[in-house]
């Protein structure tokens, strides 16, 4: 176990720690978290007080749209900044494998966004006290969100390795995420032959399945395989820079 840790995990954790800490060393992290909580707080409070419903559904339906902006914004610096400043040269000349750098950075992005999501736990906990909350469904909703984070972060890190300009990285990641997002919404507009295909490629059908409480391996595989695809592409581009 110890040997396994030393050989495969240790370096990833060192990179992860450094990246995660540097989120909090800069002001950006706090700003993004505060804005994120303000917006989610608004969309949580409005249905609660106006419609009088103890549900997270409105919020959870809105979060994929917010993730389109927030996740690329969080992940855009992971590689872009290092390429721009040149610190990537320091990193790559240390005794670390390139995939360890990639995984460490990726996990740092995923964990940081998950922290933002964890902060919203406050909402369902409030609901438990003032109404009848379906706890099982709430857990399923959070699982769905987590898979979405896994997928979008991999696209975010992919955009980041392509360019040293963070804004360009943001736009590339946003466009790719948006494509996956919008395709799922198109299933009413396309000819019936394509509906299955559109449902399969788009996020919506998979995300809805999970948040409804139906945790199907097919949906999980969808999220994981897209994440894997983008991570492997990122690694390939990372290596081709040599």
């Amino acid at each position: 176990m110890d040997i396994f840790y030393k050989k495969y995990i240790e370096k990833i954790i060192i990179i992860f720690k450094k990246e995660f800490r540097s989120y909090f060393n800069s002001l950006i992290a706090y700003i993004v978290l505060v804005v994120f909580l303000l917006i989610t707080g608004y969309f949580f409070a409005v249905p609660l007080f106006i419609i009088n419903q103890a549900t997270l559904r409105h919020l959870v339906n809105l979060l994929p749209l917010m993730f389109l902006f927030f996740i690329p914004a969080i992940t855009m610096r992971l590689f872009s900044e290092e390429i721009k400043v040149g610190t990537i040269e320091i990193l790559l000349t240390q005794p670390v494998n390139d995939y360890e750098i990639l995984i460490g950075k990726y996990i740092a992005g995923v964990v940081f966004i998950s922290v933002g999501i964890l902060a919203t736990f406050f909402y369902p906990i409030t609901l438990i006290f003032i109404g009848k909350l379906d706890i099982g469904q709430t857990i399923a909703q959070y699982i769905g969100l987590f898979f979405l984070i896994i997928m979008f972060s991999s696209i975010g890190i992919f955009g980041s390795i392509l360019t040293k300009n963070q804004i360009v990285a943001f736009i590339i990641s946003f466009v790719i995420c948006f494509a996956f997002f919008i395709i799922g919404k198109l299933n009413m507009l396309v000819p019936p032959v394509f509906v299955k295909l559109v449902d399969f490629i788009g996020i919506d059908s998979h995300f809805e399945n999970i948040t409804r409480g139906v945790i199907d391996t097919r949906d999980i595989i969808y999220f994981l395989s897209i994440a894997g695809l983008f991570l492997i592409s990122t690694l390939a581009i990372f290596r081709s820079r040599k």
Partner: protein
Amino acid sequence: MIKVENITKFYGNVCALDNISFEIQKGEIIGFLGPNGAGKTTTMRIITCYLSPTKGTVKIGNYDIIENPIEVKKCIGYLPENNPLYDDMGVIEYLEFIADLRNLERSIKKEQIKKVVNICGLKGVVSKNIGELSKGYRQRLGFAQAIISDPEILILDEPTSGLDPNQAREVRNLIKELKKQKTVILSTHILSEVQATCDRVLIINKGKIIASGTTDELQSLVAGKEKIYFEIRSNKDVSQNLAQIKNIENIVLIKKEDSILGYEIESKIDIREQLFEIAVENKWIVRDLHQEKISLEDVFRKLTQET
């Protein structure tokens, strides 16, 4: 220790290194000398496994840079060009991060950090953020980072560029202190720096090694001619008179101010005495008469312009 064999590197269609080979023994300090864009940095980046060569191999000890990059990187400390640093990290935080990546045990890590902070004179800034450091301190921190794991080989890409003369001298002293224990490669385009620190020089131009050897050896490469500077006060050009002296090959009037004339004379043998005699004969007032030593600068200029 370091064996570079037939390295070629293409960036797209541009050939940055053209079939370079050399060897470096343990304990040597090697200087890479060359104009900008000659291929110094590319060579260093290949040795440190940051870039991979299009063709050829590099061996560090028994390890190959393509087959065992991790082992190679373990024994190299590297200060990249322009010394990139994480501005949002603290000084100690950064050194700890590098020490962790270099597999230093916890107890050794503390000791090593203390040691490099002392060696590099970083004591006054340990509590600061890297972004707040001045250029001199940044360079010292980059240096500290390179030596933190006590690597056998140090590769320094323009370690003194952008520093003021005092800081540059300090860095040179640091390098000299390490001289006995480590193999060092440094690149520069400041010739005096090479003369002051290096055992051996490789002159690189347009992706090729055009000369290598100790500074003395390089000087003798273009030697073979005496160069004498001769300055007198006179109202008329005296080249005609000078040309009468035997063995003179070339006379150039390089200075003419009012009635002061300066000549650069090339000859096969030392003719300073004859010059004195001719001056006495013609009652010229001699202001200066000295033999010019061929500097590394001349060697460099000559070699890089010829090719």
